[in-house]
């Protein structure tokens, strides 16, 4: 506990004023000037401070507070019922700390706005008070500052097209000089999942101050140090990538390239001679995060808000019941409207079912690709091209009755054939993006992504493949029936029913997949009592 210099009461850090405030006498103090108890004169004493350690008996998570009497309550990482005070310990001081600047009220507001974005999020995440259990936690981060002061060279390969249509490719080498620092930041906590950590970035250091334990009073600290060696390789990779990116984006180089005019097209830019780090400086930082874990079945969902910028990363499982009720509601409404419409033939019913299921499959495939992009940072190429192709084809087919077809059948065939072509294109795209995603997943596997997630993705992809093949077969059957002019309603309606079933199965699968993606397994202890993170 940090005592008030005026009255001896407990001080806490107030986010609104960025000052230490005493609840007893109401005085305000500058946190940098507050003297703390644990600073004795030994070398260890100067570089360390006292903390009260609270341990979760079910997952082994440790939360640190300034005061042993601070209540901790349930564990934010596994949703366990309580955390138990274990000991007072000396903790090495980090170099810098970024104080909280987002207040808890703001944090709740940000969370509720995010939850309100989707009407299909389970009630558990939307009801009032659902954001009450947010905790202000300082997470440990490593900062690697790499200094550069070096010459580099860039090869820019132009293709040159002159009026006589001859093509020449020229290789131009540029040299330049770069001086400065690039910093790499990574969280040093096992409990702070990497995907959430990435989603909360950038970690702005503009408010960073020299560490003082005064900033921590009233909040929690999480110190499950991952050693800096774990991130050494990755930092070198990222820093090398960044070098190239920064040099390539440099205005001096871009201007130079542009002055060659439009007759030249840049084919390739290659950075040669990567710069050597002149020196590498490693610092440790505490960064503020509003964090909340909610139990969900046997798993847990996390919500985190960057305490400096207010950026949110939260997991909201969709509620299948809500989606189903919405589907039934819209369906009921449409059924009611249908009494105003003339009866339709079985062929028309089949066409509408086919068009609707293909659109439904397309939307679910997009949803999958977006989830992949956002969860695993996989870029899916040509995601929108097919959506547009499909849209245009649909519009063309729907416009065919306007061409005054005296009979209905030719229109149906046109629509059927375009649907057929579209479905094939669609499947081709899925296979193509599937290959891309699989390649990316292989790359990621070794790095850091949750094995459970990879299993889910595999399972979903296998199921989806079956669903798409069934849909394709149904479309082929439909076109065959229409071309052969089979008008027996039993076949046509049977096909409709199969299509609806196929779409329904796909919908259940994609909703299940969304839930599997957003609910993680709680962290668990292994036999030795050490934490391992299967997620």
């Amino acid at each position, binding site marked *: 506990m940090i005592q008030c210099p005026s009255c001896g009461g407990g001080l806490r850090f107030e986010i609104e004023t960025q000052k230490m405030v005493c609840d007893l006498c109401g005085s305000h103090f500058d946190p940098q000037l507050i003297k703390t108890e644990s600073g004795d004169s030994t070398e260890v004493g100067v570089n360390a401070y006292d903390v009260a350690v609270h341990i979760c008996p079910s997952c082994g998570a440790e939360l640190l507070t300034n005061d042993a009497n601070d209540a901790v309550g349930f564990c934010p990482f596994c949703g366990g019922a309580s955390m138990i005070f274990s000991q007072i310990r000396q903790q090495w001081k980090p170099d810098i700390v970024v104080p909280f600047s987002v207040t808890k009220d703001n944090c709740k507001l940000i969370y509720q706005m995010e939850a309100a974005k989707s009407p299909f999020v389970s009630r558990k995440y939307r009801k009032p008070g659902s954001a009450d259990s947010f905790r202000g936690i300082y997470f440990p981060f490593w900062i690697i500052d790499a200094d550069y002061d070096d010459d580099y060279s860039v090869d820019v390969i132009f293709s040159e097209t002159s009026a006589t249509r001859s093509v020449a490719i020229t290789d131009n080498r540029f040299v330049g000089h770069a*001086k400065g620092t*690039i910093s790499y930041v990574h969280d040093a906590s096992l409990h702070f999942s990497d995907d959430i950590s990435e989603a909360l970035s950038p970690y702005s250091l503009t408010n960073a101050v020299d560490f003082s334990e005064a900033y921590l009073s009233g909040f929690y600290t999480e110190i499950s140090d991952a050693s800096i060696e774990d991130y050494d390789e990755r930092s070198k990779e990222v820093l090398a990538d960044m070098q190239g990116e920064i040099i390539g984006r440099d205005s001096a180089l871009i201007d130079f390239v542009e002055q060659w005019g439009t007759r030249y097209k840049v084919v390739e830019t290659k950075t040669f001679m990567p710069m050597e780090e002149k020196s590498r400086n490693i610092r440790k930082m505490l960064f503020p995060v509003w964090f909340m874990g909610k139990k969900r079945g046997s798993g847990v969902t996390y919500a985190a808000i960057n305490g400096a910028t207010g950026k949110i990363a939260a997991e909201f499982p969709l509620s299948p019941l809500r989606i*189903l009720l919405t589907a039934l509601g819209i369906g009921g409404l449409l059924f009611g409207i249908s009494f105003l419409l003339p009866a339709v033939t079985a062929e028309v*019913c089949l066409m509408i079912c086919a068009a609707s299921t293909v659109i*439904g499959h397309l*939307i679910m495939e997009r949803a999958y690709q977006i989830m992949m992009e956002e969860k695993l940072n996989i870029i899916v190429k040509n995601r929108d091209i097919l959506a547009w192709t499909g849209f245009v084809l649909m519009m063309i087919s729907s416009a065919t009755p306007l061409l005054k077809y005296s009979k209905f059948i030719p229109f149906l065939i046109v629509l059927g054939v375009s649907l057929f072509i579209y479905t094939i294109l669609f499947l081709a795209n899925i296979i193509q993006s599937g290959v891309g995603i699989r390649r990316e997943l292989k790359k990621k596997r070794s790095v850091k992504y949750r094995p459970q997630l990879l299993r889910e993705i595999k399972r979903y992809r296998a199921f989806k493949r079956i669903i798409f093949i069934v849909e394709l077969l149904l479309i082929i059957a439909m076109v065959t029936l229409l071309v052969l002019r089979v008008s027996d309603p039993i076949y046509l309606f049977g096909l409709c029913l199969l299509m609806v079933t196929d779409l329904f199965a796909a919908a259940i699968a*994609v909703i299940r997949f969304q839930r599997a993606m957003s609910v993680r397994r709680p962290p668990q202890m292994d036999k030795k009592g050490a934490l391992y993170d299967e997620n």
Partner: protein
Amino acid sequence: MMKTKRTLLMLCVLIWVLSAVLPISASSMTIQEEWEIEKNTYTNPETGFKALIADEVKCLSQEENDSLRESMKPLTQYGNIGCCIVEQNIVDDASDLARMQRNIRFKKEKYASILLILVPKRTNNEYTSSKGSVFLHCEGDLNRFFSQRKKEEICNSVYQDETKETVYSAAAEVLRQVNEHAAEKAPIERQRYFSYGLIALVLGLTFAITLSFLTDYNPSIHRSEDRDIIPSQKSHLEISKVRLISRNTLQQSKPE
């Protein structure tokens, strides 16, 4: 006094005569006619719907009458049907006349459809300038089978300037088309709830899925462009003195 009595008596007689005469003139139908229509009415034993022919102009022979009734029989599956042949007055609107005929012929029935054929009025063996016409008025199931456009299409397909002589062929042709169209529409109409149920289900499902996975509504963790890097420090890498030091032509090709 006597004068008043006589006036009263005269008034009573007048009222009595009028009350006896007026209903007949309003229905413009003799008891003989009523009886004839009644005799020629067919009642569907399964549905209880009737088919009747009211030939006010008396232009149909008994054979023609029977034949028309025969072709009206299938339509009694869907509701009451009447074929009314009346003389045309210049002022009368065909749809009003059809509704009037429906009320006269099927007073107590809930639904009844009327095929109305108007024959130009003939005075002194000369037709007046008004033309005859064919009009179809539908109620009940038949009304759901026939859109306004379809009704007009059928009526316009027969010769429109009906005289007594062409009435039979016009009526027969209209009834043939009506039968054909109804037979085509009836099964579709029977599947109505099933097909719209399916359509509502599939569209509802697609809409709900679209809503829940629209990018704006999809509540997954959003990807960050600038991971691992502190933006405030990126610009610390300063680039200077970019210059071209060599220029080599790697290859040159001249397509013919």
